[in-house]
């Protein structure tokens, strides 16, 4: 849950308009995905990681976020090395299997791995420097359907509430010998998830009643937008142009 809340509020990047950050991130992301090679992706990953370091992100948060993508990079790399290509790099025997690593597989694996690292780091910069409601306002500006943004806002708000409920139910079950063996664990988990759905139903009824009393007519009033600053436009154009030149090289 800490991952959902973390935001580097005192970093200079946090003061830039969320729309600008989102747009630049999406453009650079497309460049990363469409680049055939490794250099540009490693550059984006390095720049993004430098920015993340300058935000003074706690190591625990950083490792939690990057552990899963790193595992995927490892899986893809090994899969590609031993499964793709014709030109052998080296070979060895392990547990009765004869393994050969291929040069083309290594190249492809590194390309995919660097793409994943670049994309993950880029997204991390955006998320650490932008609070959730501002990100939603930026999505709304990009004409993402209003209904979907409302759903996201409700979901984000109630993840914490329902997670807390889930923890209370879980502790109560543990205190009453829930999760003691496999069968019991399964039944306890079923009751927990079923109770969460019931809680969600009840909370939604309470929430909608409260909102209707305050004038809700089916559409939530969304965000106030301020005009872009010229410095923001200049900076975003500069970043996109430089990245475009590097992408083209």
């Amino acid at each position, binding site marked *: 849950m800490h991952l959902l809340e973390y935001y580097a509020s005192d970093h200079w990047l946090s003061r830039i308009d969320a729309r600008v950050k989102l747009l630049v991130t999406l453009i650079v992301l497309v460049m990363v995905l469409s680049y055939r090679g490794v250099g540009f992706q490693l550059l984006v990953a390095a720049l993004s990681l430098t920015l993340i370091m300058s935000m003074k992100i706690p190591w625990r948060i950083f490792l939690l976020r990057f552990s*899963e993508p790193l*595992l995927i990079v490892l899986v893809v790399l090994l899969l590609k090395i031993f*499964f793709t290509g014709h030109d052998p790099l080296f070979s060895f025997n392990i547990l009765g299997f004869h393994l050969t690593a291929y040069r083309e597989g290594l190249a492809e694996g590194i390309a995919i791995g660097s793409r994943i690292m670049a994309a993950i780091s880029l997204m991390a910069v955006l998320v650490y420097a932008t609070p959730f409601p501002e990100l939603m306002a930026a999505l709304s500006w990009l004409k993402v359907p209003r209904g*979907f943004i409302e759903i996201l806002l409700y979901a984000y708000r109630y993840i914490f509430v329902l997670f807390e409920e889930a923890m209370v139910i879980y502790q109560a079950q543990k205190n009453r010998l829930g999760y003691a063996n496999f069968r019991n664990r399964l039944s306890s988990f*079923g*009751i927990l998830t079923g109770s969460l759905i019931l809680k*969600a139903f009840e909370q939604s*009824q309470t929430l909608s009643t409260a909102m209707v009393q305050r004038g809700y007519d089916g559409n939530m009033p969304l965000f106030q937008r301020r005009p872009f600053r010229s410095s923001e436009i200049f900076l975003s154009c500069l970043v996109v142009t430089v990245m475009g030149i590097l992408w083209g090289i």
Partner: protein
Amino acid sequence: MKKVAPGFVIALIGGLALPQNAVAMHIAEGLLPFNWAAFWFAVALPFFAWGIYRLNQRSSEDLSFKPLVGLMAAVVFIISCMPIPVPFAGTCSHPCGTGISGILVGPAISVVITAAALLIQALFLAHGGLSTLGADVVSMGVMGSFTGFLTFRALRSVKVNMAVAAFMAGLFADWATYFMTSVELAAGIRGEGAFLPLFWKVLIAFIPTQLPLGVLEGAMTAGMVVLLYKKRPDLLIKMRVIKAREVAVIGAVLIALTIFFSGVAPAEASKWTGVDEVVIEKIAKEQGREPREPLINMEQGDLPLFIFLVAGVVGGFAAGYYWRVLIAEKGPPLCRGGAERSPEASAKIRGS
């Protein structure tokens, strides 16, 4: 040049995927090249648009529908982050939760719910990604929700029991999700290689966790639907999972059965002989002990009525004699509060 054994590759993917099964459910950011990422977005878009259309339609009829869908998205988010134990694989894995959302709110809106949960996971937990959101929505949202919904409806239409239908819906929704994820992964990372061999290997690598996990997700989906049916059938009617007529018919059948058995059973029971007559009396006769009249025959005259009357009189007398001990003297003395009240307070009360 020797080729590497395919079995080893399967073991490699499976072995590395086991410790963190979220690897399997969400395709990571950047894993798919641009053309495949765009393709899966294009596939997901019509389903998503249909979901938004249905959402707006339903929320114009019922103002509480959007908050409900938002909270369902939060539940799907939490469910798909929770580890559950997988037998045989000896590890934990994550359910999808799309089977239950497909059943409850319909497949189109379930696609929107999945997209919302996946977007929050991609942004904040790095499970999945923005570029792979289309692929993840297709595997989890479209395949999971539609398979779950269609399985549930098809089985219910041929009068299959609700728990069994929900179990099958959860099972197939889970398996369909991982089937589609295998297609997407194999297509995305094959490079210049052939699609089918890699697809089979990825699919087989998922089997140790996903085959039993599907069964567990089926059991959980069934448990959830049955829990809702028992505790809040009105919600299932509201979500159009069951019809009011269905609940009324089941209720009427239950009432009829209760009346039938409560009326018929005593009458039937009176015709049956008890263990005393069948066993004890028979053995006693065999040993030469014939039955004789009881010393006090309770079945003759109004003796039981007389005994109850006497008991009532004695009980009433005792209760009346000791009523102060039983009731009045248990609480605080009745007049103490008034006696201890200050003269000013008493004057104030009188004045008011």
